[in-house]
């Protein structure tokens, strides 16, 4: 069905080490959305994000991906749902080695030609860097772009962002998020980003879910949310690191 949600969270709760991290979470994400999940540190947003590609499973409740249980084919799910971590992992070796990391188990990626790899780098605005360049020598922003290019080679439908710009300065953060937004439009991606920075996210996200102590306290377009009340309740005011220019 064309209107079926891409993801559906049904009464999802999560506990770890005896602590309640998420409580009775219910929401759906539709294809093409740019969803921001906002919350203060410890609100449960990273745990929630990891559930979208089954790196973490709920203690209770169910998650559906394209109307099927999310765990019905985990490897297929993870190829369809790429993730960009806060600190990108760069493997030893050159840029080509990094882009072809999934080639160890995926023949399609192992057989990717150099011009296709260069195209992937161009997509993340790194077309001027040689494939033979040592990946460990890249700057923080470039490493994040390389991780993005590596994820894009899997041709995902969904991109998860786990505070991908929190270690970057405001200008670099903006340029990474501009790039993600551009890719979302050109590749028709669904983007789900967790952040504590509502000022940065409001530039890009059409919808925001606000988490506080593991519960959803707000869900809707930025404009529709009573910004000060919801954000204050979630402890988000005062966390802004990006200017609004």
């Amino acid at each position: 069905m064309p209107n079926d949600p891409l993801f559906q969270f049904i009464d999802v709760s999560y506990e770890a080490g005896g602590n309640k991290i998420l409580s009775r979470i219910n929401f759906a994400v539709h294809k093409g959305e740019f969803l921001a999940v906002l919350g203060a540190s410890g609100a449960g947003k990273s745990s929630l994000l990891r559930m979208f590609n089954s790196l973490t499973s709920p203690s209770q409740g169910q998650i559906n991906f394209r109307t099927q249980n999310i765990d019905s084919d985990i490897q297929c799910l993870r190829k369809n749902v790429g993730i960009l971590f806060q600190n990108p992992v760069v493997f030893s070796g050159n840029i080509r080695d990094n882009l072809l990391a999934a080639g160890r188990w995926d023949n399609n990626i192992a057989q990717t030609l150099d011009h296709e790899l260069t195209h992937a780098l161009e997509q993340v605005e790194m077309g001027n860097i040689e494939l033979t360049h040592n990946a460990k020598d890249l700057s923080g922003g470039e490493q994040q772009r390389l991780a993005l290019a590596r994820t894009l080679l899997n041709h995902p439908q969904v991109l998860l962002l786990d505070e991908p710009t929190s270690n970057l300065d405001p200008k670099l953060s903006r340029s990474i998020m501009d790039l993600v937004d551009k890719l979302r439009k050109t590749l028709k991606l669904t983007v789900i980003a967790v952040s504590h920075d509502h000022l940065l996210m409001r530039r890009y996200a059409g919808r925001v879910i606000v988490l506080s102590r593991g519960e959803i306290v707000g869900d809707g377009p930025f404009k529709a949310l009573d910004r000060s009340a919801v954000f204050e309740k979630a402890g988000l005011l005062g966390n802004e690191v990006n200017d609004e220019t």
Partner: protein
Amino acid sequence: MRPDFYVLNWNDLIVSLAFIAFSLFLIKKWKLGLEQTLLVGTLRSFVQLTLMGYVLTWFFDQQHWAFMLSLLFIMILIASYEGTRRQKNEIPHFFSAMFVALLGSAILILGTILLFILDVEPWYSPYAAIPIGGMIIGNGLNSTSLTANRFVGELRHREKEIETLLALGATPKLAVYDAMKASIHAALIPNINAMMTVGLVQLPGVMTGQILAGIDPIIAVRYQIMIMYMWFTTATMANIIMLTIVYRQFFTKKMQLRRELLREQA
């Protein structure tokens, strides 16, 4: 002229107590505070090894395959328990992993040595099976204990890398492959180094013991060569079997890294 035997009698052993007396003198002079510990250690080593000598004499008199298999089985159980006790980290089912690794290595390597290299007749002769079995199990225990500790360290160090690979669609085995490789390398390098320097830097214990017992050095050397090869194969095989079982314990059925097992324990 080569003596047939250097036989050590009880009087000789009493003379060797002079070493302990000299150590006690040094400990007192330097006020190291180890007198009591040394005396207990001296007494325990004497009593334990003397008893072991009588036990071994009894073992060597037993000529039955069931006895030999039971004894090796008990040795493997004890080694698996010791390996689990030495483990600094919580690894679910580690005892079973050790047991399978040591049992597998013992069956293949001890079996090959007894049946095809030494042509021991009967194959369960305790004179061959007990010392060689003990060396295989002991070496396997030391090597797998080190490897398992190192493997958990590698998993901790590479947690993000492993999750990145899982997120790209890797199976758990492929996601931890580099960690397994690094752990096995670290465990085997001492064995390789020993093979490189043996005879140049040190004379190995088994060879020294055989020469002192009057065996022709050429024959003693052949034994030593076989033992070095056996050690390396035991370490390689036991580590691979153990890690093949252990790495699975760090993942859920949903191919998720069990990060709670990687937290440092107090």
